[in-house]
């Protein structure tokens, strides 16, 4: 009877893949938790380093992960710029304005990617991206393990940063009570700028590993945004650990759904599960 042993593959894959989903969702979660903004350009911003890594690889022969040495600071600065010059002003106009700005950024990016790299599907096909490894009976693509480890490390670093540094504490405080944060001497405009910049740095990391794991097109950002959304909502808004666990739960639902109901049902099962969890516990698994 191969029954239960067979499950080992989708389960392992689901958990590891969940790491990638969590990595993609972290930036979205952070921005929403602190600034109450649903950054609908998040998926497209993640793709930025997917394409950046692609250029590094095909034009300069540089490994995409190495390209992050430039990619992360660039995205950090882009994040500072977007917050300071676009979103900050939008917040002062109305509640909807930042959403519209994000939408605009999304459209601009998707079209820019299309112009620069055509609608053709691309991938970061490095040598290790095509390898797999075995755990007993289970054969998994190596990148899945890489994604998971990176996601875990990034999550732990982020948690330590938020817990131990003044800036990290200030970010948490500003997300809990903006006015009190101001009254305590925190420059909340600057905090928001840093938060968005950090979220972009996280997106940068996610973009490269996304590109190593899946083929992508100019419009892939939207699909991953929706997954990230599901992950954040599942794990609980405002919780870093929640996003990580949410990612794994989502990944598991997807792979197990695919195992039992076929590949085309994968995402459907995952989203149905998000709905079920929301019905039972609307604030998400770790939500406040």
């Amino acid at each position, binding site marked *: 009877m191969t029954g239960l042993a067979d499950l080992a593959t989708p389960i392992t894959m689901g958990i590891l893949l969940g790491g990638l989903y969590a990595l993609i969702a972290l930036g979205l979660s952070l921005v929403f938790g602190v600034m109450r903004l649903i950054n609908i350009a998040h998926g497209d911003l993640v793709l930025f380093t997917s394409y950046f890594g692609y250029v590094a690889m095909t034009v300069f022969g540089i490994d995409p992960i190495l390209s992050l040495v430039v990619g992360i600071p660039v995205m950090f600065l882009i994040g500072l710029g977007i917050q300071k010059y676009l979103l900050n002003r939008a917040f002062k106009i109305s509640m909807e304005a930042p959403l519209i700005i994000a939408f605009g950024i999304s459209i601009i990016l998707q079209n820019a990617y299309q112009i620069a790299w055509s609608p053709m599907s691309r991938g970061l096909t490095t040598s290790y991206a095509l390898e797999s490894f075995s755990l007993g009976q289970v054969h998994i693509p190596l990148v899945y393990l890489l994604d998971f480890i990176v996601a875990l490390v990034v999550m732990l670093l982020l948690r330590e940063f938020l817990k131990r540094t003044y800036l990290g*504490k200030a970010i948490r405080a500003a997300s809990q009570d903006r006015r009190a*944060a101001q009254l305590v*001497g*925190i420059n*909340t405009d600057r905090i928001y700028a840093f938060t968005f910049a950090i979220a972009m740095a996280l997106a940068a990391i996610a973009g490269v590993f996304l590109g190593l794991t899946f083929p992508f097109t100019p419009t892939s950002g939207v699909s991953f945004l929706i997954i990230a959304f599901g992950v954040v909502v599942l794990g609980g808004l405002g919780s870093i650990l929640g996003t990580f666990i949410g990612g794994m739960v989502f990944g598991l639902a997807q792979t197990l759904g695919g195992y039992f109901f076929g590949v085309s049902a994968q995402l459907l099962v995952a989203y149905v599960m998000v709905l079920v969890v929301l019905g039972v516990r609307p604030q998400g698994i770790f939500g406040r």
Partner: protein
Amino acid sequence: MPERALLKVSNVDTFYGSIQALWDVSLVVNPGEIVALIGANGSGKSTLLNTISGLIHPTKGSIEFEGKNISAVNPFQVVALGISQVPEGRRIFPDLTILENLILGSYNRKARPQREQNLKRVYELFPLLEERKNQLAKTLSGGEQQMLAIGRGLMSNPKLMLLDEMSLGLAPIILNELYKALKEIRERGITILFVEQNVRRSLTEADRAYIMEAGRVVLSGNVSELREEEEVRKAYFGV
């Protein structure tokens, strides 16, 4: 020759959008004083504190602190200049620990070097905060949260502390402790301006008071004078 006033609010108008909340308000706080700002709900007391703290900016008039005009200054800079507000409703950070709340009180760079020192002094004033320092702030009772809010306000090395409706929802026993703490804070050289609805209590705790109604200052003076004032007696003591 009288000392220069620590805080001088002169003829301030403040608007929320198109609605005027303060009309030609003037107020002075001298170093070492405890001044009360009294009035019913909606009289503009909180608005005045928020204007001083820089959360809103006046459209007319000026606010001077230690001789410097601070009417256009951002809230976080007001803290750096030496004014700390303990806001209405306490507004402690609920999902941070007591210690984290206090540490954030010294966020502004000028106050950071004295953090450990200030922490010790806050613990001396409110020993309970030290006992429970790793507890989440949201698990505290109202009175304990008020102590935390005051402690947090002290961490920024203020010269002037603003307290907005400290006594809301608190039992008299706890209030006595808090007012005792305020006196101790004054002993340490910090000037206090507090907002209250309770006239009687305010007049026993303060040196001077301003009474506000509908966005204007209608009466002011030493508390002994005010207690004798015909209007005060009629309006607030029913005599």
